[in-house]
């Protein structure tokens, strides 16, 4: 499959990038690692006139620990850099665990944390070639008005399938968004909409530039469990992240988030709250797993059956809670 023809824009600074976005507005796609965008463009899911390559912008690359203990990760930092950071491994283990499961080592060398946060939602009826989609009939997410996953429905259920966002949600991460007139910080939790098409709150003129891990989230125990068929390469078919702080065998604070079973990564508030103040045992972990499974809405967007994937959210949540407690 050939790449559609486009013009490549290579800004050297954020301001330049924002200017380009403002000019080309809806006719541009942003390229960071390209591991998802390039195959999607070959499948003609995107045929932009311009591609904005962020690689030349060096000041949003790298991991910095601020004096107040907050950690800043530039959006262009590669996933393997995040994976290899000993500081993050020591203080934010849930992120290290999650990032190490993304795709394969080769893809992590290219893929970036910003790209992983902004990853397009995925669906078996959407991530297909133009010829295939024509044969099947176009869907809501691209060119059509029907949904193959929930027939008769008007909402897109394409699954959010990145691994790092549930970990970041557990860490109460914030992201920096830069637009033509302002630079703002928003909690990552508010970034996702829960709709498969407009899956993030980001204007076409804006860029995600940085991720911040608050100092208060440091040194939480953390575990990420991912369901996939192969031990590498695969997107998650279900994923559970747990971050937990204990004092004297009791849970002082806990957060649980899931991915790949809804159109957005989901922080399961109730599940985290249920753990607080308690000593974790098998039964409690099981109960937390049940709540997470009830919150999950897996559909036939991905391989393996929805029933199975919901069941695995239950099992993986239980296991992740027990593992974080150990």
């Amino acid at each position: 499959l050939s790449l559609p023809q486009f013009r490549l824009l290579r800004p050297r600074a954020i301001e330049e990038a924002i200017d380009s976005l403002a000019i080309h507005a809806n006719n541009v796609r942003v390229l960071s690692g390209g591991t998802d965008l390039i195959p999607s463009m070959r499948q003609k899911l995107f045929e932009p006139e311009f591609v904005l390559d962020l690689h030349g912008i060096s000041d949003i690359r790298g991991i910095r620990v601020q004096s107040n203990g907050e950690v800043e990760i530039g959006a262009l930092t590669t996933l393997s850099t995040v994976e290899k950071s000993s500081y993050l491994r020591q203080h934010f283990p849930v992120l290290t665990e999650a990032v190490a499961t993304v795709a394969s080592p080769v893809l992590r060398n290219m893929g970036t944390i910003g790209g992983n946060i902004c990853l397009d939602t995925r669906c078996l009826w959407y991530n297909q070639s133009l010829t295939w989609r024509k044969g099947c009939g176009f869907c809501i997410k691209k060119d059509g008005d029907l949904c193959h996953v929930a027939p008769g429905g008007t909402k897109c259920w394409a699954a959010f399938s990145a691994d790092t966002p549930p970990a970041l949600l557990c860490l109460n991460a914030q992201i920096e968004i830069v637009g033509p007139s302002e630079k703002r910080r928003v909690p990552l939790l508010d970034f996702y909409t829960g709709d498969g098409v407009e899956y993030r709150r980001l204007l076409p003129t804006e860029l995600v530039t940085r991720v911040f891990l608050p100092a208060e989230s440091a040194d939480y125990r953390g575990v990420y469990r991912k369901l996939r068929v192969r031990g590498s390469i695969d997107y998650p078919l279900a994923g559970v992240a747990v971050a937990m702080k204990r004092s004297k065998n009791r849970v002082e604070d806990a957060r649980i988030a899931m991915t790949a079973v809804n159109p957005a990564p989901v922080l399961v508030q109730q599940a985290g709250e249920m753990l607080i103040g308690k000593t974790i045992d098998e039964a409690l972990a099981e109960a937390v797993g049940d709540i997470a499974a009830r919150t999950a809405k897996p559909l036939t967007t991905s391989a393996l059956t929805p029933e199975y994937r919901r069941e695995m959210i239950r099992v993986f949540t239980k296991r992740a809670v027990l593992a974080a407690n150990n």
Partner: protein
Amino acid sequence: MADFSIIGKPTAMVDAAEKTTGAGKYTDDLRVPGMLIGKILHSPYPHARVKSIDTNRAEALDGVVAVVIGKDAPNPYGILPVGHDEHALALDKVRYVGDNVACVVATSESVAEKALELIDVAYEVLPAYFDPEESMKAKTDFIHENKPGNLEKDYHHAFGDPDRGFTEADHIAEARFIANEVTHAAMEPHSTLASFELDPHTGKLGRLTVWSSTQVPYYLQHKLSLVLEMPMSQIRVIKPLVGGGFGGKSEVIPLEIIAAVAARKAQAPVKITYTREEVFWAHRGRPRTIIDLKTGIKNDGRITAVKARVVQDGGAYCSYGVVTILYSGALLGALYDIPHIQYDGYRVLTNKPACGAMRGHGTVNVRFAFETQLDELAAKIAMDPAEIRQRNLLKPPCITVNGLRVQSYGLPECIEKTVERSGWKQRRGKLPKGRGLGIACSHYVSGAANSIIRSDMPHSTVNIKIDRDGGVVVYTGASEIGQGSDTMTAQVAAEVLGCSLARVRVIAADTDLTPIDIGSYSSRVTFMAGNATLRAAEDVKKRIAAAAAKKMGCAAEEITFRDDLILKKSYGGAGDSSAQDSHEADPSASLRADGRMRPSLHGSLTLPESQFWSASVSGRVEGQILRGSLQQKRKEEGPKEWMTFEEAVVAAIDFHGALTGTGSYAPPPEARGGKHKGGGVGPSPAYSYSAQVAEVSVDEDTGEVTVHKVWAAHDCGRALNPVAVEGQIVGSVWMGMGQALTEEMIWKDGMLMNAGMLEYRSPSSVESPEVESIIVESIDPEGPFGAKECSEGSLAATIPAIGNAIYDAVGVRLHESPFTPERVLAALRAKRNAKSLNMTGGIDPTAPARLREHGGSLCFGNKGPERHKVDPARNQNPASAGGAD
């Protein structure tokens, strides 16, 4: 002959350097001046009549040179003489989503892709058939008009007296097994470049040259001649490097014909390379197979009878289908001693891409069912699963009840060795909870004794030419596809001629240069092309020996060839005593090659042969001059005790003129099987044997299966190149594990949901287990140096070995492959009577009605697909839009 200097030693592939450095050229790497790119328009419907095709808008696009449609080459073709049901491009009907409708030839891939969007095709959508058992019930709208009930072919065989066999049985097991559809997923996507020369007399298109990623250059030449109506002599097929075939390139694939037709119409060279999605549509993989299997045994474990009803979901064209359904029945025999066999096989057409030959062609799915059922029966009589297999061994030489001749039979040793190495007796049943061991056996043909096109032609022919400086050129039609065929050919030639491997150059698979060979499939190359090479080398050796004998003043029979020398048998250490050293007893035989045996050339020329061959160019020239004068000097000295290989070659050329030899191989008549209908498929001059033990663990909460280790013993007759044999065993186990655990083509109403390497999940290196390959050598009486096949036979044992290990680990029997976590978990739940979950409803292709609920948009009643208003197919397609508007 037991003391070898070349074969039996781990040998690097002769093309290893060009492949590992990237210098080697595969078809898609090739470019010729003026070359254009072809892109194929595929059908969006699983079954439809093509009412009209309007190519005007596409042809008008800048950069488009030609648009080819079915009428440009209407002759039918197909790999089997009974299955000529394919056309280059659709004539009147399309039969699967992805069927070939038109081809655009343009100056670039992106222009060609754009032009595809501008071809207007009007279809009349027809009812489509996706499930073989439903398809067999069809009364109208047959996929091919001449195949009522969509039945490609059925066979009903009874050998012995099956009813009596079951009456005699003490225990009978009966069950349905399903093996879902898998594909080859070879690394290299198919690619073809076709180019016509101008005829020097007429100035019109003349000879055609086709470079293609194929396992069967001669079949391609033949089918091209049928479709293009050209004599075969006007068509040259060249096979460049091929990046794996596994059967997916063992027949003529649509793009190969389309590229040639397109080159003719565009009057320019055309290259087509499939996208990965197109590779899945071209397919020819292993069909989804439904097996109703019944086995009877006595209390002592002896099998009394087997009855199998096999239904294969063959897809929309015949392909190798008739052969596949016959192999499935025939290969019930020749592994164990089974006195009575009943077989009912149905090859059914459905509206999906055609299935064909895939590694372990025809045997794999039935073997999965059989080995699983045998395990169940062993459990029933509380017998060790290894022992029940040992109770049912053949006693060769013999001819099985269904007419298969077995001569060499390493299965007993294979079982013994895997049992011993895996610690089967000590460890089975004593592993921690959730961990288990399973055993299974399999076998495969070393080439088919009867070729597809019945004739008396030899299956392989090899020519050898030897140059004046002792360079040996072997011309073989056998196709190197990564399996090591060129290396095997060079080894066999060098061994017979007693020369070093570096002297041998192999020219392979070019129909203008090489003699005919029917191709690389059904694991026939080592056995057949190997034997032809051996005979060609013996032929040329005879000529050298005759000339050398004259020079040496002795009889030709007194001469022996080894280590680049021609010696009198009575001379030094090269006499009969060393020739009788057995290969097994002295594995370091090769070490002697340069050291002990090389006679000193009067102290003046001491360069060992290997150094001479690797010397620099100028050094070589000087060396040759030096050698020339030495040879002259030695010539004048009179009769010798020994000669160098070059001296002997020069003598032979001086004596005979050109020094060439030829050899060919045809399977012996007594190996060609029974006389019953369909009896031609299954017989082979020799069978390989395999036994495997798999160690797995099962996560009982998730159903995930981990394979920790596989012990795989394979009887390959003799390992000509042990490292290549081990590679083939490991590859077979790995591919079998893919089919056992993760690989499955998932369909929804004729749409392939996972036509890519991301969603079609071949195992990655992470879940690849350790494979301990154990080579067993049974020394076949007819194989070249006793060799048999080693590339396919191991695969079939892996699936049931893993399934049986799962049973040992957690006590559930899985009758449907692959054993995905959801299927395993569903089985575990059922066993525990726990809350059952509908684990397979969403993806199980046996339930197309339910899939439509999921699929939504496709509904094949009398109504076409409901299409979106911006869908271009809807506006141009009144037939399908009618229902939706």
